[in-house]
């Protein structure tokens, strides 16, 4: 089984994820095809191998979490339909973006996945998990992605996801010289019949033709780009209006609440006259003040129309609530080693507990112990010894970042050979007990 996703769709998911300060999820739209590859071997004339190819064309981001399911993981078909509309038939999977997390389907995700396969009638529904991790000083970030294809309650089956691209743009295929040939017949035949290819200027007709195709495509690109740009501005403006309205409503509600409170306090003062009869709210009975903390108090910061600007968040540093961007809080120490594995085997289990226990590791390292590219893919990695002091820092980091609850970040320690192979035993063992049943470290889901 193979899967592919376009670079633009992939970047778009990264973009939406970067914009959200909590987890992010959505649906994958596309196609599943059967591809036949014919191979000829010595033993048989031809063997046709049938491969299922999952093509992800597009993604449909969900505006917020819990939009089509509740806290128990129960799906709401009505909400699902209103989100997907007529794209429902194109759904081939769904995705989730999480920060500082394990590369496994959480319990809730498994439940949701099962219901989705039944509801949508797609038995081979796939689940794309993005997990984001950063070094302690936030200088390096890694986005890891795994495509799961759960099968018969086995939730750890994975498929390789490729991103088709330009590949080799090598222009070395042009020939700079012709093969020498003194045959007159050869030259004559080629000239006579080959003339078809050239126009009166001696330029190959194909060149002009293909350039026309490219040019038309580029013009269309510009045109659609212009339309997208306009729609972005319109969307921005309406969003601003909506935010302003929310602000005004909140302000108005606050004012009316205060007025009501003052009115009631004034009434109380009338009915129970006291020598120091004044209308100062500070002298009023504390009970009445408490009673008038109206339910329409300003919304929680996470849903306020004016969320704190990003630079404000960064300035606040450690005093942030857990729901804000994790990369800004130094208290959340993601495992530095996770950002690619070292080029040599590690002495002990890597990884540390998820953000919950991060406070036990207050040491921040100035540079990241990252040697090699984590999967021995290219021999170039040996040539590209990074400048820096990784060698020294690697040793100290290993010891400091281990935790009792070291969950297996197997996927990150590839060559070290500590990886349990793709296990098919459903929920992986060693899920930190500190986490709830669905294994989501981030409490921010409850926004």
């Amino acid at each position, binding site marked *: 089984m193979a899967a592919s996703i*376009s670079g633009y769709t992939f970047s778009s998911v990264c973009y939406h994820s970067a914009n959200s300060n909590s987890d992010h999820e959505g649906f994958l739209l596309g196609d599943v095809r059967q591809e036949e590859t014919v191979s000829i071997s010595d033993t048989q004339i031809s063997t046709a191998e049938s491969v299922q190819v999952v093509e992800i064309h597009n993604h449909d981001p969900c505006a917020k979490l819990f939009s089509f399911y509740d806290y128990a993981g129960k799906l709401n078909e009505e909400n699902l339909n209103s989100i997907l509309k007529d794209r429902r038939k194109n759904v081939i999977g769904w995705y989730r973006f999480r920060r500082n997390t394990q590369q496994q389907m959480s319990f809730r995700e498994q439940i949701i996945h099962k219901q989705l396969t039944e509801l949508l009638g797609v038995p081979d529904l796939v689940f794309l998990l993005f997990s984001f991790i950063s070094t302690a000083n936030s200088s390096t970030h890694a986005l890891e992605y795994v495509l799961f294809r759960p099968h018969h309650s086995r939730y750890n089956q994975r498929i390789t996801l490729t991103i088709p691209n330009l590949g080799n743009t090598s222009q070395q295929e042009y020939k*700079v010289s012709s093969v020498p040939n003194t045959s007159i017949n050869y030259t004559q035949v080629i000239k006579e019949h080959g003339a078809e290819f050239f126009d009166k200027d001696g330029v190959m007709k194909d060149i002009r033709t293909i350039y026309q195709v490219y040019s038309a495509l*580029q013009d269309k690109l510009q045109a659609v780009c212009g339309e997208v740009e306009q729609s*972005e501005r319109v969307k921005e403006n309406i969003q601003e209006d909506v935010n302003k309205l929310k602000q005004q409503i909140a302000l108005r509600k606050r004012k009316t609440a205060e007025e009501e409170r003052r009115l009631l306090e004034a009434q109380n003062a009338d009915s129970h006259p006291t020598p120091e009869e004044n209308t100062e709210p500070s002298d009023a009975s504390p009970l009445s003040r408490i009673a008038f903390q109206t339910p329409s108090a300003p919304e929680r910061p996470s849903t306020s129309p004016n969320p704190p600007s990003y630079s404000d968040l960064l300035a606040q540093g450690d005093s942030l609530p857990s729901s804000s961007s994790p990369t800004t809080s130094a208290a959340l120490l993601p495992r530095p080693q996770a950002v690619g594995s070292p080029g040599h085997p590690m002495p002990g289990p890597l990884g540390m507990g998820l953000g919950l226990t991060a406070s036990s590791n207050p040491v921040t390292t100035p540079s990241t112990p990252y040697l090699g590219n984590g999967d021995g893919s290219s021999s170039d990695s040996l040539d590209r010894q990074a400048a820096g002091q990784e060698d020294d820092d690697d040793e100290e980091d290993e010891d400091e970042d281990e935790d009792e609850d070291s969950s297996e970040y197997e996927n990150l320690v590839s060559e070290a050979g500590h990886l349990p192979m793709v296990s098919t035993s459903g929920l992986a063992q060693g899920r930190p007990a500190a986490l709830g049943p669905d294994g989501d470290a981030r409490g921010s889901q409850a926004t």
Partner: protein
Amino acid sequence: MAVSAVHLESDAFLVCMNHALSTEKEEVMGLCIGEVETTRIVHIHSVIILRRSDKRKDRVEISPEQLSAASTEAERLADMTGRPMRVVGWYHSHPHITVWPSHVDVRTQAMYQMLDQCFVGLIFSCFIEDKNTKTGRVLYTGFQSVQAQKGSEYERVEIPVHVVPREAIGKVCLESAVELPRILCQEEQDTYRKIHSLAHLDAVTKIHNGSVFTKNLCSQMSAVSGPLLQWLEDRLEQNQQSIVELRQEKERLQRELAAI
């Protein structure tokens, strides 16, 4: 170090990712446009995709002409946004390679820092796959260079990078994204023109070369132009839907405000 952090707007981040994922066989590069704040934070608002004149491995360098063209672009951006914009850094990709800058990268960065000590470098590492766990990885890092002692080799200095959320994609970023197919075609045309000017080629060779050009352009259209166009159309559709929903919400809020 002169720079305390890099704030990369998410739409510029989107363009960098698009560019980095466009090819796995060679490094791509571009310039970052933005401003440096008094807090020594480099704020990157958009990026410009560049052509690589020297396509040898690990030779990611920017020519003076490109820097000059980028500065002009920065001025145009400054006029458009009314904010002081200039070239504040460069980015390039490391397909199949570790995200850390090589010695050459560090030296190149050091050179730029001589002209502007707040110049920053970003590297995007992509097409990394762990075959055992079928995990793919995309990494990005920010760095500058420092010389430990006078006369010694340059070393990498890590610079924190934060992606700043931006719900709507800016005009400049969209334009940069659409530049990529144009740049690819230009590169192909330039190469073909040089080949075509060789006089001693026979007809078969000319036909061959013409076909290579056609093949390469087709490749670009199907791998880059096509998917880009599809993404733009999808984005347009998403935006249109959002606009409808936002308009409904706006009306609802207006009614609510009027009722209070």
